[in-house]
């Protein structure tokens, strides 16, 4: 598991190096009702990805209703005025497509992947549930059980996920980023059909949505289809997003979670970080490169060299940063201590390595190699049309413009060692941090395992 974890983090980092604008044509349009459209053409295979993203996520929930955005995402498959529960997925299935949905703190998205000649059916279905959702009580209660099992499986059965939830709560003092995306169990258990209906009416509308179509299509055809199927839905003039913001961070925080299911302790350090801003992407781009320098490949990265190869206090290190978000982001470092090494010792080694980096700076050859990888990531990213579509959705729902998305690869290419060090000095400040220790119960403190 540990290795899989390290590998997964490395892949995420590599994917994040890609700006995603690519060299192929991307066209955008806007319907009169405010729906924004993005078309990414890729004619290599007769396949299309159809996505609708709403500018609403779990950080837009009100206090006491955590999990509502995600719960509504589940309920969006439960039928409309003219479609039975489950019929949406059955139709996608019967046409050989696959469909899914996802909810983050900042957005909710719905996606289908299907043969390109079946795009119109997807638009018919997705436009229908943008405005005609029906929520039968029995379906809602059964689905709430499903969500509780999802939380039990993905959070409560995984000590690492429980610790991440606690760290998040400690990191954000006032912002809803501090509340778990899936919701707290006691609040999920109390959600009702009326809650979901109200949230749907408040946030699902064409002027709060972004349509992204990628694959074997032409921009003109997509725009015409979009006008036909989405154009008739009335705009709702929804108010702008208003979210409680955090005060400036002044105190480092610590979370220690002991759980009898922990077989491999680890250390996690999160720093509050800025994100891409419209017209201002340089600092975020520098942080993307910083994550690669600190935690890229173990054999060459700053933390891998110091903790795994030279100090031999860790068997794995990682650094990651997601540059895209509405209000703020996290710069995350992970260390898996070697056998027999206390987490405290691993943390001391981590801080010593970060201090040396902040005073010593970047090895120019390392920086040159990362620049090469940034350039190659653009080439490799063109092979994954769904990944490109997703990066557009994340950026546009975070309030970035088309120009920002198109300018992101150039922003990554323009990063200098000086910019990376400046960003590192700002962000790698313990006062902005939460440090988590995931541990097994101490000796004599058997906890649940003693039963």
């Amino acid at each position, binding site marked *: 598991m540990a290795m899989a974890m390290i590998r997964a983090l490395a892949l995420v980092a590599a994917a994040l190096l890609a700006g995603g604008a690519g060299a192929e044509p991307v066209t955008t349009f806007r319907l009169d009702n405010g729906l924004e459209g993005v078309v990414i053409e890729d004619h290599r295979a007769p396949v299309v990805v159809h996505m609708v993203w709403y500018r609403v996520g779990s950080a837009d929930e009100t206090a006491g209703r955590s999990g509502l955005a995600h719960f509504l995402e589940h309920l969006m498959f439960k039928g409309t005025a003219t479609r039975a529960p489950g019929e949406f997925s059955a*139709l996608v299935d019967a046409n*050989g*497509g696959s469909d899914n949905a996802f909810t983050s703190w900042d957005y909710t998205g719905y996606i289908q992947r299907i*043969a390109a000649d079946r795009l119109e*059916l997807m638009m018919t279905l997705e436009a229908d549930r943008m405005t005609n959702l029906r929520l039968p009580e029995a379906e809602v*209660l059964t689905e709430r059980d499903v969500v509780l099992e999802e939380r039990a499986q993905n959070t409560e059965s995984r000590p690492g996920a429980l610790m991440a939830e606690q760290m998040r709560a400690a990191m954000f003092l006032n912002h809803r980023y501090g509340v778990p995306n899936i919701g707290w169990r006691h609040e999920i258990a109390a959600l009702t059909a009326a809650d979901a209906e109200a949230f749907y009416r408040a946030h699902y509308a064409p002027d709060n949505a972004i349509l992204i179509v990628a694959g074997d299509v032409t921009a003109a055809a997509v725009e015409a289809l979009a006008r036909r199927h989405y154009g008739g839905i009335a705009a709702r003039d929804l108010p702008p997003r208003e979210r409680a913001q955090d005060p400036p961070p002044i105190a480092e925080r610590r979370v220690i979670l002991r759980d009898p299911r922990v*077989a*491999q302790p680890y250390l996690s350090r999160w720093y509050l970080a800025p994100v891409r801003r419209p017209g201002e992407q340089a600092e975020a781009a520098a942080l993307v490169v910083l994550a690669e320098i600190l935690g890229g490949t173990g054999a*060459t990265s700053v933390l891998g060299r110091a903790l795994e190869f030279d100090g031999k206090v860790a068997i794995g290190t990682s650094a990651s940063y997601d540059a895209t978000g509405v209000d703020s982001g996290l710069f995350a470092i992970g260390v898996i201590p070697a056998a027999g090494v206390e987490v405290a010792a691993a943390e001391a080694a981590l801080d010593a390595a970060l201090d040396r980096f902040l005073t010593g700076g970047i090895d120019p050859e390392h920086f040159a190699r990362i620049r090469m990888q940034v350039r*190659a990531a653009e080439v490799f990213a063109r092979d994954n049309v769904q990944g490109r579509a997703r990066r557009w959705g994340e950026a546009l729902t975070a309030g970035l413009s088309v120009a920002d998305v198109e300018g992101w690869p150039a922003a990554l290419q323009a990063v200098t060692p000086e910019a990376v060090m400046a960003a590192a000095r700002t962000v790698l400040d313990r006062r902005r941090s939460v440090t988590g220790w995931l541990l097994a119960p101490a000796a004599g403190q058997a906890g649940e395992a003693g039963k």
Partner: protein
Amino acid sequence: MTRIVLGLVAALLFALPLRAGVAVEEVTSPGGIRAWLVAEPEIPFVALEIGFRGGSSLDPGGARGAVRLMVGLLEEGAGERDARAFAEAREALAAEFGFDVDADSVTVSARFLTENRDEATALLRDALTAPRFDAEAIERVRGQVAASIRADSQDPGTLAYWALLAAAFGSDPYGSSDTGSAESLAALTRDDLVAAHGAALARDRVHVAAVGDITGPELGRLLDDLLGGLPATGAPLPGPAAVALAPGITVQPFAGPQSAVVFGQPGIDKDDPDFLVAFVVNEVMGQGARFGTRLMAALREERGLTYGVDTSLYAFDRGALIVGGFQTANGRAAEAVAVLRTEWARIATAGLTAEELAAIKTYATGEYPLRFDGNGRIAANLLAMQLDGRPADYILHRNGLVEAITLEEANRVAARLYDPAALRIVVVGEPAGVVTGPLPPLP
């Protein structure tokens, strides 16, 4: 009712199966290495997938974990370079190499830019043909594998999975994790790794798929350069694995909010004439945990018992199972297990309906071309086809074979595939009302 009627209308409107227009060229290098190629010059890189048949089944008796540890060390120092120098060279080229192992094969995935293809090939050649197995690297990677063994020991789903496979395959390599145990991993020596390398990576068992910006002759030269230095022959492949899976329920206590349930029974070999029919029938039953499969409908959509449940045909090279799993609240585990067993019996005795068969055919024929989207994905699928023993033109015929499946065939195979009396169910957790023993009568 409404749902079925509308589904049929849509199926009629959209029933034209999409053709997977992938033109596979079969290439033989000057040195005799064969490969499948799809030339796709639009993006200036190549996705290369290499598979060596055998995988962790080639672990010698006492050295469980040797092949996996060996594979984990391939890019931790090779040729003139130690681990760091190798990583620096790879980064400077922005090449991406991945090495993996499963019970039947070692696979290598590479992506490299056209502009430095020769240098990237030379680097990958070092990893495949001249790994150093430096002492320091061995201990570092051994520590990582040991950590994954520790983590698996506290993961209920993983525990349940290996309990089922151990019950099915006993001491055959299929019956245990290829990480080895903490003890067998600790006992591995450098000699074991050198032997595992010679056993598992050889030209007599290699399959290659390449997709991207490269011509047939260029690929031929590249493959001779890359693989020509490997030994001509490796270790003999082991014989068939006996499947001895007794029916019943096994409960393994584990403290947590949910029970992890893994279930299975003897399956169907991938060269069995009924395999494709069985695959399609299992798409109806539970493949991929899609909405609308019978198990997702019964366990999730109708009763809210789980977040997801799936069933897969585990057609290994030397033995076959059908395996599935889900997680459910401890207090509802007995109900969930009963629903599972009821569905298992229902599909065996009543089979599919004509509507279900028609719907799954449109799904299966529509889904198939989606697998061939993107160079990396195409290459991975072409390698999987070779390891499954399919011909290159299978892509063109496969949807026709699915279309030709009759209801009688599907139901004959459903009755053959699912046997409610043969089901073995492993539960790791604190399930209320589920106990170790023979399968109790259904309520």
